[in-house]
């Protein structure tokens, strides 16, 4: 949403800024403030204040149960030398690279197919069905499906004469399997967002393209993709942020294993905070994750010219 607001903010430069002195007296602003007040309170109490508290905790040695002591940047120094942290960062980036490109391309294909081939509400509903399921349920279902001994997928592989694969039990397979589960869960939702973007492209543009004799693929690459860019930016930025924070499916299926192959940053944070009682250290890792996400998000918005529309 934040991304959208920025996109809107930038794409309407013609709206002259009201003069500063007048701004808060403006009845419209007051009304707006009144409308956002409920969520502003929620945001402050449940997000902003805990987040700022979190920043403070990252400078302490808080172990959850005893009083915290200020230790300066000690947690951050420890972090720089912690090979488990660097492994977690590497594993997380690997996951993002496995997840985002494939998920976005698949979502794009599904969205275009929905747009061009069907208007059926039933199919749209079916496509987002996995997203409607709680992630814990999704994780459990796939844990059973992928089990090497009794899972139906390995039964099928065996029937085809292929060797059994321990999808979640082998380090080289675990992360691709987790990425696949998450793509299955979120691709429908992502497709729906892109689909909404497609619907906002005026039909007249396509008419013009066909009058000019553009082929199907030309229309897609020269008309659909550029006009869809603001929506795509939103989809990619939010799904990158989401996938940097992957947790639930890993918590259910692999618990960071085997041999740390799926110990992503969020799992490592959880483990440090709640299994190993190092809340201060865990919070410091969260702050670093936050810095990484700001950097990645800003790079994405800059590279993809998020604020501009070609429409």
């Amino acid at each position, binding site marked *: 949403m*934040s*991304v959208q*607001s*920025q996109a809107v*903010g*930038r794409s309407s430069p013609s709206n002259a800024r009201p003069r500063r002195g007048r701004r808060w007296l403006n009845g419209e602003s007051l009304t707006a403030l009144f409308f956002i007040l409920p969520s502003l309170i929620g*945001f402050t109490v*449940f*997000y*902003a*204040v*805990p*987040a700022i*508290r*979190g*920043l403070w*905790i990252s400078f302490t040695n*808080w*172990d*959850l*149960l*005893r*009083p*915290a002591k200020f230790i300066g940047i000690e947690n951050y120094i420890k972090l720089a030398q912690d090979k488990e942290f660097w492994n977690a960062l590497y594993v997380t980036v690997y996951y993002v690279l496995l997840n985002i490109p494939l998920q976005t391309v698949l979502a794009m294909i599904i969205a275009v197919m929905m747009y061009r081939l069907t208007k059926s509400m039933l199919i749209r509903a079916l496509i987002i069905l996995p997203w409607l399921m709680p992630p814990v349920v999704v994780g459990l279902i796939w*844990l*059973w499906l*992928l*089990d*090497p*001994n*009794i899972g139906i997928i390995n039964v099928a592989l065996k029937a085809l004469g292929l*060797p059994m694969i*321990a999808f*979640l*039990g*082998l*380090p080289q397979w675990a992360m691709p399997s987790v990425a696949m589960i998450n793509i299955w869960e979120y691709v429908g939702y992502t497709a729906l967002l892109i689909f909404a973007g497609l619907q906002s492209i005026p039909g007249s543009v396509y008419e013009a393209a066909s009058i000019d004799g553009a082929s199907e693929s030309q229309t897609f690459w020269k008309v659909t993709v550029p006009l869809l860019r603001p929506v795509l930016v939103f989809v990619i930025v939010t799904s990158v*942020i989401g996938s940097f*924070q992957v947790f639930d499916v890993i918590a259910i*299926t692999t618990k960071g*294993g*085997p*041999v740390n192959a799926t110990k992503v940053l969020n799992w490592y*944070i*959880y*483990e440090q*905070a*709640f*299994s*190993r*009682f190092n*809340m201060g250290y865990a*919070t410091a890792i*969260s*702050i670093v*994750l*936050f810095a990484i*996400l*700001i950097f990645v*998000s800003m790079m994405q918005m800059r590279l993809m010219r998020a604020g501009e529309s070609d429409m």
Partner: protein
Amino acid sequence: MKKVSLVVTLLLILSTVLSACGGAAAPAAQAPAADAGAAAPAAPSGEVVTIEYALWDANQLPAYQACADAFMAANPNIKVNITQSGWNDYWNTIQTGMVAGTAPDVFTDHLAKYPEFAAKEQLVDIQPYVDADGVDLGVYLGQLADLWARDGKRFGLPKDWDTIAIVYNQNALDAAGVTLDELNNATWDLETGGTFQELIAKLSVDENGNNGLSPDFDPTKVKQYGLIINGAGEGYGQTEWSWLAATTGWRHIDELYATKYNYDDPRFTGTIQWYADNMKKGFIMPLEQVSSLGGSAAFNSGLGALHSNGSWMIGDFVNNATFPFGFARLPQGPEGRKSMFNGLADSIWVGTKHPAEAWQWVKYAASKECADKVGEFGVVFPAQQSGVDKALAAYAAKGVDVSAFTLQATEPDGTFLFPVTDHASEISAIMGPVMQSVMLGESEAAVALPAANEEVNALFK
């Protein structure tokens, strides 16, 4: 506008990242200042005090409910409210409850967990109560009571104990022509693997019907494994490897509360390598196949002939095994048969508002009366002999012979204690991945384990 929305963006990201941590950020200085020694004033007569009690084993819930009912009948001013939740949720709930000030007054505690809680001043020292009430610690079997005492303080009264034995699939033994006698008298050593290695080879069958002794045996297409274990075992290997490693004379630590682990010992690394090698040979179910649903699920679905597990799982096999099964003795190593001896106890949280009543319940839950009641349910072995006798009778009534567990417990030098030390969770975090990598064949035990041992021992410096 642009600046504002940028700030909002940043705040949004920050808060989504941090809200999980921030949510738990209850005031840190809230650690309750309960003075354990001082006897709290008893509740005025007529007022009913509720003691919240937590346990994780669903099988034991009816047994302890029966104890609680009897206790409440005898103490009308105390109400015991029992909450059961599964192992993982259990510890999360207890820990976050301690932070938030909502932990149960009394909870079932584990040897791998209590030293950390004690070090973080979350447990009531019950030694003063034990002294004041003259509780006889001699009634508890073996050294069970000692496991819960440290430096003159005591953090629990023993309720039960467990040992390890081998569960076997009768059909698999019959098909291979292996007798129970052979299994009960199996031997094992580091160099040759003994008759136990021969047995698990003989009991491993591939899809073509060849067993592990045949040169045509295909380890990639095994239909039935000779042995199934529960996992890599992290730093304890209670059901997985401790019962073999200990027969060489090796121990995790040299004494309770040691500040040094022995994971670099060649007897230990050799034992773990033996497991890894036999997984590769197809005689032990490879780790990657047990890691998702667990060893007992695989055994219960008939994928293995033998399975090592603890006495607390007896009921699980009774309920879930799809074939005739029984319990056999552990193999004998150079120093005899060895099982880890572990026991649970109830601890009192320092935040309790009713320490005197909480103590009454702890004392009752560890009493002969309650032990006898729990024994009658036949779900666990109580910490006192009379309770064990009741449990044996209950198991016999169900037609299960559990002597493999009890003989192990009563045999001279048949058991060694659970390695209780500080830093248990950090040790698990170090040993977990290393043990996995050795058992998956990604690293050599003799190289990886000594390196991990250095990391573990560094925690104590």
